[in-house]
């Protein structure tokens, strides 16, 4: 029986996952040029500086696009279909891949406002940032 995919946390993105476990959505900010970026990287995609800080995003944004997944790539997710996989534009101006959860995900529309929540995974130390429809 396959297991649900979990991140293989590494040296670079360890702060992100530690933040998520504590209920914080962290993204990278370049100390040199102040560009924000996600997913976590070794260098700034704007100026190639390696001096990257972690800043806490508000955790709010809008749905940019979404897809109802009926056939997940990893069959372990089958018990959750259809899964509302989505691209969220965070208010900070960064695109983020995630999913929409909560009480009424079937009413999701592009442009809908969403707010981050942190979902416990099978691993006690790992929580996934996912989004709920706001308001």
């Amino acid at each position, binding site marked *: 029986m396959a297991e*649900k*995919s*979990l*991140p*293989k*946390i*590494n040296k670079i*993105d360890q702060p992100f996952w530690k933040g998520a476990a504590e209920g914080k959505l962290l993204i990278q900010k370049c100390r040199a040029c102040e*560009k*924000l*970026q*996600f*997913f976590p990287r070794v260098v700034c*995609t*704007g100026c190639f500086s390696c001096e990257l800080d972690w800043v806490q995003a508000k955790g709010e944004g809008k749905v*940019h*696009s*979404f*897809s*109802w*997944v*009926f*056939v*997940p*790539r*990893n069959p372990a*997710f089958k018990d*959750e279909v*259809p*899964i509302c*996989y*989505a*691209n969220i*534009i965070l208010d900070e*101006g*960064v*695109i*983020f*891949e*995630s*999913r929409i959860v909560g009480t009424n995900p079937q009413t999701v529309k*592009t442009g809908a406002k969403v707010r981050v929540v942190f979902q416990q*995974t099978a691993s006690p130390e790992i929580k*996934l940032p*996912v989004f709920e429809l706001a308001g």
Partner: protein
Amino acid sequence: MRRKRVCFVGYGSTEYSRKSEEPLLSYYAQAIRAALDQTGLKKSDIQGFSVTTQSSPDYSPHVAEQLGLELDWVLNGDYGGAGGVTSVRRAADAIEAGHVDVAVLLGGNSFDKSVFQQRPLEYQRANYVDVYGYGGPNTLMALVQRRHMEQYGTTLDQIGKIAVTQRENARLNPQALLRDPMSLEDYLKSRMISDPIRLFDCVMPCSGAECVVLASEERARSITDKLVYLVTDAERINYQVSNMLPDKTTFGIKVVGDRLFAEVRRDQIDLFELYDDYPIAVLIQIEDLGYCGKGEGGKFVGSHDLSFKGDFPVNTGGGELSVGQAGLAGGFLHVVEALRQLRSEAGPRQVKKAERALVTGIGWLSYGRNLGTTAGLIMERRA
């Protein structure tokens, strides 16, 4: 840039199979043998060799070792679906630089389970996409399609017309695995995979291989009198990668098209072999190539005949959607079909005027954006 002295001199294809577990190496060998038969070249004429792969390091030299090829040039073509076009580019560079006169380029797939295929580490995919239960490329392209439909009013009828017309072309292609008639209604009613992507938006994985042979002009003349020149070629890797608010509905093909059409006019292209992992990808490429404005692809598709006998022939052999996607042969299928057309070897699906073809290749889907690898080339038949 414009190429001066690089020609396509031959190609080879295998039969495609839905279930075969024949070793991949055997498919490779069959495709190469077909190309050698067609060109009259001997194995010892092969100086350059490329295999498009998503496998381990040194894959190409190891395949060459198995095939007994001693070489002056080798390439591990790690470009996904863009591999057909990008390996042509790399080999053309090697020919123009004088490293080789003849190069054989391969792509293929088999369900052979004895061959362990290790994917390279995909950190961003594993940690930031897979964990949410996504549906693979079907989901990532579904995000692009929904965005296009909502932003520009593109309809399922327009998108479906691409799949339906390609099926009509495939009905005249004996290599195609999917040759049953398909109506727009069949398309619309096909099973939902990752909404709005349906079953008939998806390619069917299969076994098979394709081979392309490239040679210097001087050498080409001694091989064939059907000279097909590589005119110009371009690629864009990681389009918009550092833009944190990317435009999801524009591909790197826009940059590729601008470069290609610096050398050849848009109205000089007779047929289009556009990488078709999904119909929406074909529609967006038509926009990005500048045959209509951004967002007008749906209307364009609706008002043109995309069949092999139409005014805008696209994927004249049925494309990957109807032939089947033999893994990384997918990117080669389009090059080979263009060659068949330009050499007047396409039989009942022959495009009447086939002097110039535009071929694209697109590969993998990057985080939050769209295609990671995009490439294109223009080839031309000269007497």
